[in-house]
Structure formats: structure tokens, C-alpha cells
């Protein structure tokens, strides 16, 4: 499966948001690190066009689930770091739970013949 094709496929609404929340859950990350992390976590099956990450980050910031601050990166450049807020944590939990339920249900339906 080519990455291009994956890219054009519409991810279910909110999926990218959930993945981003997950990516910054452990520690503050800048945008590039988040994209690398998503790449690693999905073991390259899922490649998101890197640029579309930023509007999504911005959307989450506006919702108050993540917050951003400027800091110095590992190679000494100014970079914008995102971290999860308390509301973001709560959101990650509920969304993860909801996602599990959804996939389980859909899996059951697909498997029950």
C-alpha cells in the first residue's frame, strides 16, 4: 500500500486528534518529533502528510487540550513544544475508551458472520 493512498483516505473524524494526544502524553514534544513518533508508533503503516499535523495541533490548542510554549530544541534551535493539559489527559482517556469500544463492537460485527 503506497503512503500516498493512505494519505488520501479520510481518517475517521477525530482519529488524528487522538493519535496526537497520545503522542504528547508522556512529555512535551515539538511538531517534528510528534510526526516521527506517530510514524514509529504506527510502524509506518500509517503515514500522515506531515503538513496536516499543524492545523490539527492548532485545533487542539484552541480546544484547550494541549498547550504550547517556545523552547530550545535538542539541536539548539527555537521550537514550539506541545504538552497535554489536564483537560487533554481526561480527553485522551475518554477518547481511548470510546475508540476501544467502537473497534471491539465493529470487530464483533465483522467476525460474527
Amino acid at each position, binding site marked *: 500500500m503506497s503512503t500516498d493512498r493512505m494519505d488520501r483516505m479520510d481518517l475517521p473524524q477525530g482519529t488524528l486528534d487522538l493519535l496526537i494526544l497520545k503522542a504528547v502524553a508522556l512529555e512535551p514534544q*515539538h*511538531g*517534528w518529533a510528534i*510526526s*516521527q513518533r506517530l510514524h514509529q508508533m504506527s510502524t509506518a503503516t500509517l503515514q500522515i*502528510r*506531515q*503538513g*496536516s499535523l*499543524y*492545523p490539527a495541533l*492548532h*485545533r487542539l*490548542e*484552541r*480546544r*484547550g487540550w494541549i*498547550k504550547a510554549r517556545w523552547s530550545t*530544541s535538542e*539541536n539548539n*534551535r*527555537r*521550537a*514550539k513544544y506541545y504538552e497535554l493539559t489536564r483537560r487533554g489527559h481526561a480527553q485522551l482517556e475518554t477518547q481511548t475508551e470510546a475508540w476501544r469500544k467502537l473497534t471491539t463492537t465493529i470487530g464483533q460485527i465483522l467476525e460474527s458472520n
Partner: protein
Amino acid sequence: MLSDWMLRLRALIKRTAVEEEIDTELRFHFDRQVESYIAEGLTPSEAARRARIAFGHFDHIKEEYRDAFGTRLLDDLKQDVGYGARALLRTPGFTCIALLTVGIGIGASSAIFSVVNAVLIRDLPYGDVTRLVYVGVRNPKLTDIPIESQDGIGAFAPSNADFDDLRSAATSFSNLTIFAQDALTLVDRDSTERIGGARVNGDFFRTIDVRPEIGRVLGPDDDGIGRPRVAVISHRLWQTAFAGAPDILTRQLSLGGGAYDVVGVMPPLFLYPRASDVGPDAVSKVTDVWIPMALTAQQQAERDFSNNTAAIGRLKPGVSVRDAQAEMSVLMARIDERHSRDWKGWHAVVTPMADSAVRNVRRPIWFLFGAVLLVLLIACSNAAHLTLARAEGRNHEIGVRAALGAGRGRLVRQLLTEAMLLAIAGGALGIGVSYAVVLLLPFVDPGNVPRLGEASVDWRVLLFGGGLSIFTGMTFGLFPALTVSRTEIGDVIKRAGRARTTGTSRMRGTLVVLQVSLAVLLVAGATLLLESYRNVLMADRGFSSSTLTLRISLDGGYREAERRRAFFRQLLSDVRALPNVETAGGVNALPLSGSEAMSFFTLDGFANKQDQMVNTRWVSAGYFNAMGTALLEGRAIEDSDIEGRPPVVVVNKAFASRYYPGASAVGRRFRIRGLDPSDPPRPWSTIVGVVADVRHSNLEDAPPPQVYSSLYQGEPMDSLYVAVQTRVAPDAMVSTVRRTIRNIDPQLALADIHVMGELVSEATARRRFQTTLLTAFGVIALALAAGGLYGLMSYTVRQRTREIGVRLALGARTSDVLLLVAGHGAKITLLGISIGAVAALMLARVLASTLYGVAPTDPGAIVVTVAVLMGAALLACLMPARRAIRLDPVKTLRED
């Protein structure tokens, strides 16, 4: 959500900083990606290429960012404005005409609004004016007195004794005051000047609740016989008579009767009472000095008659005008018992003060405002018409833009932005125009519209003008934008911009019909008013406009009746003896001087009624000649009609025909009855002559019966109007007459020096004001409508160029083409005219009360209107039609 709004706000306010941050963030990502590819072993250029692919389009992402921030709208707006401004500059002709149209519409509306604002909206410079009322009295025996129908209070002030009784019993008012207007003589070294003054009681300033600019106002302690003489002066007088001296509170004011200490100066706009506040009996236009009433015990006890101007009450909180009226009615009914038998019948009238000053101007001013809004509507529809024409010319461009993916909303927004640009620029121009008009207003100021002189472009007017700009922009922008954006894209491009959509041409036709019909409405109104104005000027007034008149007031040195008579006799004979003086005479009250006297009378051999009254005047020999009033029968008052000789009177034609219809009045006997039946009867006078009717109280009503007695056979007055008929220009005689009077007594003050024509001009000023403005509106409307029609016709010709070419090529005669083009224009014009004429007939009813000598449905006015409009329409149609027949058929056909 808070974080959301904070971020949006930051994006709006610190645009560049936010854009830079986005840039930095994306750049950082991109560089790291490139680095990581290089680390994987790619060449730098290949790494950059791969990174770009992985990342996606930079600008696209930024655009998404902006969308999320909501700054997209602003960016679009900036783009639209820039684009619109460039597009407008590319068509300077269109832009100029549209700007002018909108500017005139908004300017005229704002200017008239500034009048509405000054006269009807802006607060009076008193404390809460809604709680101020006039407390007046009326007596059915005096209903003939024209005061009822005029400006101002519409009732008499209570007499001093009545006022005292009312005040001690009334509970509706927190304060109740009374004052008398009085013309005072201001003595300044060697010159004297008459100024408007008011004698006020101690509660006056407290009731009106207005604070002085400097010093103090008059209080109860100032009012009384023997108190120090103090005066409060107007800001105006402080500036003119004292040159704004800072030590004004230590200065004295020299009035005819003595010196007064100035204790206060009122703020600039406080000039109460003005002529418009008190009506036709006003002795001066504004009030510049307030002094205490200081009534004598005898004056205090007067019950039947009053020289007072008005009583003002301030309602207690919670008391309505109706409550106050109810209480005053009860009180006055009780007080009426104390009046002498002949004068019983007084009742109280309570009227809101704010209302009474503008009662008679409210309608005309709103009417003018309505008229100017019609002008604005025409301007709007003209601008819409122009915009539509222009948008159609750009059909191709619009089609291309639509084909390239511009959304319909975006196209509408673009066209609307252009309209708004025009409207706002036109609005700015309009504010300029309104400034100019407000500067010109004093030249048409009738002088009796309260506070018209204070009209100015203040924040309310600016707000109004700004609001109008936006409103007009929306009106004339939205319709064309919607119409044009609805056109089929493919259609437009296929026809390479020649598309003629029936939708837009119907819209344009409708707009022009609207303009024509509104113009008919305004021109018809203006025609009716012009005709009325002409009728008023042409009406037989009964006096000559070229008579020079002036007023002389005697001072304390003329206490004895004989001295007064001697002075008047000497004065008149000296003036008559002057070279270039035809004749001169005296009267107690000139026509249009705002003063009328009435008396009870009895006629010999007539079924006299109780309470019959007649207007009376006292005149000297030569008066009728000097005034140019024709003697119709018998003789005039002569020099020999003096005390001790048989009393005589002259009556006017209205008197003769009312009381002696079909017979001669000359030789009949007349006598004035005393005010009190117990008074000894006055001697009989013989009617010796009949003179023409004179319009004394106003120029528009038929004169009532009038009796003239001899100046020397009645109570001698302390002031006299002198009328002089000169052989040269009256203005040239003023200084000579002044010198003559100074030779007799240098102490006396001359006032009210006028040529009668000036009084006529003053009396017709309000009508002239209204007529001038409405005529101006009519002319503007006509020009705009003709312009609109012309635009439509030239557009039609352009649209049908090809068709006309074909017709001409096939041998059509030029007259056929003319008919074709002109016929279209005629149809639109006729439709507009008939709609407008019907509307005008309905609207004329609103004008009915303002018309004079012309019916609202006057066919003459309608004919004139239709003729004027047809003429304008003909011109507007002929020019494009001429262009049509000059077309070279070959050329037009080759054009496509």
C-alpha cells in the same frame, strides 16, 4: 472557550508575530526532516525534495491555519478593497458620477437631519424639560384673539393675583414661576439700543433649573420693592456689550430706568424666552437680560388683566401633565369667582413646555426630512442603476472569475465591497456637503423656527451620515450584486460579454420608473409650495412695502399726557417737513409687528351682542397715506381730530361689509365700551371713512374688522410707530429721520427701523424656508431622474446597436429608429409619471395645511410637473436616439 478567543484575538491583533511563529515552526519541521533524510544518506537536494513531498504545500497549510484563526475574512476583505479601489479608479467617469450622486443624497439628508436634530431632538438647555409646563388661562370671551392659532403658549398668563392664589393652593408643582417679557433700553455711553429682557419673579431660575456660567442667578431674595437692583445677563450680551470682560460681576448695566449690578452670566445657549417660545406677542427674538419683577402692591392685586408673558411650573415627580391640568382646573374654577362679573369664565390650561415651542414647526420639519429621504432614495436607486450598468459591462470578467472557481458568495462580496467603497467615499463627501449646507442655513433661516440657528454637524449628525452611507451602500450594492452573480457563467462567456439578461434590464427599468415617480412627487410638492408662496406675496396686503417705519419709546420725562401728545405732534410735523419725505404718520401698532389690541364696542342702531369685540388701532393724520392704504370712502383721520373735537373713527372694508352690508358705514356711530360695565360710557364716535383691508396680524388670513381712532383722541401712548413715505430710497432717509428726532430729544431710543418690505420678508420667511428647500430637492430629484433615464436610454441604444444596424441596413427610416428608441423611453417615463402623479395627489393632502390659494389637487401644478418631467425625459431620450440614427450600419454589423 477562553483559550480559543485569546488565540483568535492574538492572531487578529499581532498578525505579523503570529505569522512569523507559524513560519518558524514549519521551517523547523522542514529542516529537521531534511536533516534526517541526509542522515539516511540522501544528497541534500534529494533530501529537500523528499521533505517537500512528505510535508505538503507550505502556503496551503498556512491558509488552513488562517482559516482556523478566522483571519481569512479579513484577508479577503483587504483583497476585495484593493481590487475594488483599483476597479473604481479604472472607470473615473462612473466613479465621479456615482460619488456625486451618493454625496448629494447623503449630504442633503444629513444637513436636514442636523436641522431636525437642533430643533426637535437636542435637549433644551434647561433642567429636565419634560417636567416643565406652561400654566396658562383662557377665557371664551377672548377666543377671537389670534393668539390661539399661533406659535407659543396658546393661552394668556394668569394675572398677578390669580397667580398668587394658584401658587399658594397648587400641590402639583415643586416650583411655579411667572415672568413678563419686556423690551429694555440699554444705554451705552452715547448710544442706546433696545434689547430683549424678562422681568422674573424669585422662583424663575429655580423652576427652569439652569445654572449660570459665572456668578449667580436671581432668587426670591432679589425680588421685591426696595431691594438692590440686580441683573443676570446672557453670554451673548456679556460678549457684545462688555467684550467678555472678566470682571463682569463688578460691572453695572445701564438700562433705561437706571443702573443694575450684574450678578451672573448665563451659559451661551440660554436665551429664554425666545420669540418662538412666547408666540406673536414676543417683544424681542431672544432674551439677553433678566431682572427681578419687583411688583408694587397695586400690581400685585391686579386680577382681571395681566401684562405677564407666561407662568411655568415644574411638575413634582410622579405628577403627570393631566394630573396638573385637573388640579389647575379645579383651582381656577374657584378663583374665577373672584373676578369681576364681566370677566368671569377663566379656565386653566396646562401644556408641556417642550411641546409648545416646536408645535408649529414639527410638521414642516418632518415633512422636509421625509422629502430629503426621497431624494436620497432616488440617489440610491441611481447609484444602483449605475452599479448595475457597470457590473453588466463586466459580465465577461465576472464570468471568467466564476469559471476560475470564485464562489458566488465571494463574487457578491466583491461587488458589495465596491458599492461600500463608493458609499463610504460618497458619505464622506456628503458630510462635507452637509457642512456647507449648514453654513448656508442662516441665509434661509426664517428666524421663527426655534434653535434653527444652532443647527450644526455634531456627533449625532455624523452618526446619521455614517449610518446612511452603510445603508445606501447595502441598498445600491446588494441588488446589482445578487442580480449579476445569478447570471449563467457559460452563457456569459459564450456570448463574449454581450449577454443581455432580461433580469437586469427589467431591474434597471424598474429603478428608473422609481426615480421618475419620486421626482414627480417632489416636483409636484415644490410646485404647490412655490405657487402658494407666490400667492402669499401677490395677495393684497393693504400696505406698501416701501414705507419706512421705526419705533420710538418715550421715557420717564413724558409722564403727562399733554407732553406726549406734543412730542408726537412735533415729531410728525418735523419729519413731514423733511425734504424727500412725501408724508408721515403714526400708529400704535404696525402691521406684522405682532401686536393687536381689541375692545368691546357698541354700534348705534345695531343689534349689539354682549361681548362683541373688534380690533382697534390709534393713528395720526397721514398714516394711511404713508402706509399706502387706500381710502375707499369718506375721509381719513386728520390733524384737526384732536381732544375736544367730536370723536371720529375710520373703519376698514371688512368692518363696513360685516356690520353695514349693502349700505354705507360713513356717518354711523360707534363707541368703545368700558372693560367694566360700571365704567362711565365712552362718548360716541362718528365713522367718517372706510379704508382698504390691511393684513395686520399675518399675511395669509383674511383681515378681520378693524377700527382706527385718532391718536390724539385716546389715551396717549408711551411709544409710537412712525411710518414715512419717502420720495427716495427709504434706506437713504434713516439717518436724516434719526437726526430729526435727536433734535427734539437726544435721550430717546429709536428701535425697529425697517422698511415694511422687511417685515413682509420676515413674515414669509418660514414659508420661504420650506419652499426653497423643497424646490432645491425637486431640482436635484429631477436632475437625478433625468440622469437615470439618460443612462437607461443610452444603455438600450448600446444594447440594440446591432438590431438598429440591421434595421437601417434593411432600409428602415431614421424616424422609425427614433420611434423605436424614444418609444421605450416614453413608456418608462409615462409609467413613472403616472405612478408619481397618483402618489403626489395622495401626498398633497399632507401639504394641504401649508398651501395658500391653491388646492392640493390643483391641475395647474400637476400639469407643470408633468411638463417639466416630460421635457427632461425627452432630452434624456433624444440624445441617445440621435446617436442611434447616426450609427453606420456597416460598422455596427462588422463589430461582432
